[in-house]
């Protein structure tokens, strides 16, 4: 017995609409590149986008396309196509959806407007096994050359040692060499410039974060998801910098006028786990209780949460290596746990929503540790329940809302006593 009511999320900000436009523009440019016979790259995994933008490479990111399909309620369909071709239901929904999009001979017009076939593939082993393996299927399917970027996991916490930076830098150099072999011009000065722009972006993002910490918060996780796109996919571009300047200014205005996402803010929540892409309305659902989902941790996928002063644009590869390896999404758990606990305190979060996507190999292992460490550090509870943010076939609206209702009610009741 499942109910399938889904509602898109409500965006409150002008800038997020602009960011959505830039997303469409980006995919449009991919189509153009295909016309001009510029090799299109498929990128899988935690690879710093700055290297792509430094060579003007047209790149389709595995992490983003399934998100768009989810929003259009099409992700389940393509996952099924992949499953019929032998993909197990136990492996990552993102990768299944992406493989399905590649395999499908007849594509929906919506998918067709974004999809471009690969001429090259660049893949990484980080952050998880799915990234490390699923690209081989596409490489076979399209018979295209690939380069594998091997990154060390983070077993050191904040201080990444020299031998790790050296290794990962050599891998990034390998990726640049690979791109050069296939016709892209690699210019170190452009790469340095790309890193400088990226540093500007993280500075702006930190300002944006600080503005979001005010009560009432001017930005919900719905806007946050779209707003994270430049940080993740446009890292190192002027477009990214411009968009974030506008976002920061818009939020400054809202904070000045004490304009929050909702008027009577009672609770602030943090979403940890894959957001419900096909039903972002769930984020707004809790607003009827006066609860706002102030942030979702997916915003930090491959993009933020590092100390910019430790990145030297004059040594771009080393800087990018540090930025990638210290990322909270790079296992092992230390940086992720510390960051979430800190976020909870700084954003004055009252409760964490832990949505477990069962096909994920990476995030589920963290939930219990997040729950315990956040409770120890900030006395804030976490609710953990199953919710696959991409597989609409498995979705049960009544159950999910029941979980959210119960959690929010219990938080409100604690606050009242």
């Amino acid at each position, binding site marked *: 017995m499942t109910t399938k009511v889904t509602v898109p999320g409500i965006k409150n900000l002008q800038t997020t609409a602009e960011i959505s436009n830039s997303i469409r523009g980006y995919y449009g440019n991919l189509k153009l590149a295909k016309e001009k016979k510029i090799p299109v790259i498929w990128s899988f995994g935690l690879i710093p986008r700055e290297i792509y933008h430094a060579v003007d490479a047209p790149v389709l990111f595995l992490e983003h396309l399934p998100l768009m399909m989810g929003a259009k309620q099409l992700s389940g369909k393509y996952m099924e196509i992949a499953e019929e071709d032998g993909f197990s239901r136990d492996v990552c929904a993102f990768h299944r959806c992406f493989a399905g999009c590649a395999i499908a001979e007849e594509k929906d017009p919506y998918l067709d407007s974004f999809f471009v076939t690969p001429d090259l593939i660049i893949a990484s082993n980080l952050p998880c096994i799915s990234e490390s393996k699923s690209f081989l299927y596409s490489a076979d399917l399209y018979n295209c050359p690939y380069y594998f970027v091997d990154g060390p996991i983070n077993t050191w916490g904040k201080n990444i040692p020299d031998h790790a930076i050296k290794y990962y830098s050599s891998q990034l150099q390998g990726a640049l060499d690979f791109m050069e072999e296939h016709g892209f011009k690699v210019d170190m000065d452009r790469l340095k410039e790309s890193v400088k722009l990226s540093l500007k972006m993280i500075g702006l993002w930190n300002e944006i974060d600080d503005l979001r910490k005010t009560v009432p918060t001017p930005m919900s996780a719905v806007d946050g998801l779209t707003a994270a796109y430049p940080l993740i996919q446009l890292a190192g571009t002027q477009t990214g910098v411009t968009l974030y300047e506008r976002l920061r200014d818009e939020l400054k205005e809202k904070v000045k006028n004490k304009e929050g996402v909702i008027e009577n803010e009672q609770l602030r929540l943090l979403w940890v786990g894959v957001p419900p892409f096909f039903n972002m309305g769930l984020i707004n659902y809790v607003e009827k209780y006066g609860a706002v989902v102030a942030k979702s941790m997916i915003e930090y996928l491959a993009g933020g949460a590092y100390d910019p002063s430790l990145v030297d644009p004059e040594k771009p590869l080393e800087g990018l290596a540090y930025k990638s390896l210290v990322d909270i999404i790079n296992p092992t758990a230390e940086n992720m746990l510390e960051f979430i606990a800190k976020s909870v305190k700084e954003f004055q979060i009252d409760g964490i929503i832990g949505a477990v996507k069962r096909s994920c190999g990476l995030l589920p292992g963290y939930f219990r540790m997040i729950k315990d460490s956040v409770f120890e550090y900030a006395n804030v*509870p976490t*609710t953990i329940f199953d919710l696959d943010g991409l597989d609409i076939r498995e979705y049960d609206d009544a*159950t999910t809302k029941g979980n959210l*209702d*119960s*959690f929010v009610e219990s938080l409100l009741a*604690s606050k009242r006593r």
Partner: protein
Amino acid sequence: MVTVGIDVGSLSTKVVLLNNDKVVSYAIYPTGVNTEAAVDQAMESAMEKAGISSKDKPFFVATGAGKKKIAPEKQQATEVICDTIGSLHINPKVTGIIDIGGETCRAIKCDLKGNIIDFAMNDKCASGTGIFLDAMAKALRVKPEEMGDISMKSDKDIEVTSMCAVFAESEVVSMIHRKVPKHDILKGIHKSIASRIYGLTNRILLEGEIIATGGIANNIGVVSILNELMNTRLNVPKNPEIVGAIGAAILAKERS
């Protein structure tokens, strides 16, 4: 003043009448296909037992899977809250609640002040709930209410290994064909259910005094195995199915 709590479960509807903190009467009706009719019948029965005219319309709060069908939003409450309030009403010392219902199994951890610290639910699958047990009862041709007592006769340790209710049923059918005695099979089934419930309680580490609510708490077979697994003695109130409705009735008093 009289208030009413209605727990519209997937298998059964429970109505409780509360008068100034005392349960005056209650009624249980199978929910069936027509939720409103089941609620009406249960209400009528409970009011009659309390000696209250059916023209009176005491204020009510509804909980359970079907609450949205019969109550406006202001008169709805989640099962987790109602279970907790109802349980604390019966035993103020309780710090853990296990609600084993028709379709859902819930574990709640609270403090002595009644604040909910944590909860976990098993709702994706039928194993560990009333629907599963009813199916098993049919396969074994016994009455659901007798299952617990019959299973206590077993001293064997038969395993029903399938995690899924559908596969478990075929496993049980093949055991019947192999002439495995009913009480042994029942114990195996109860063990499987108790393990699922135990796994749920483990997610939030229940401790202290723990109460078992919901229809399955009447099943002594499941409860005794749970006691073993959890190394505790579960409180089982006289009418475990109505605890949620009691909580709803108390909330009705607070909200009216």
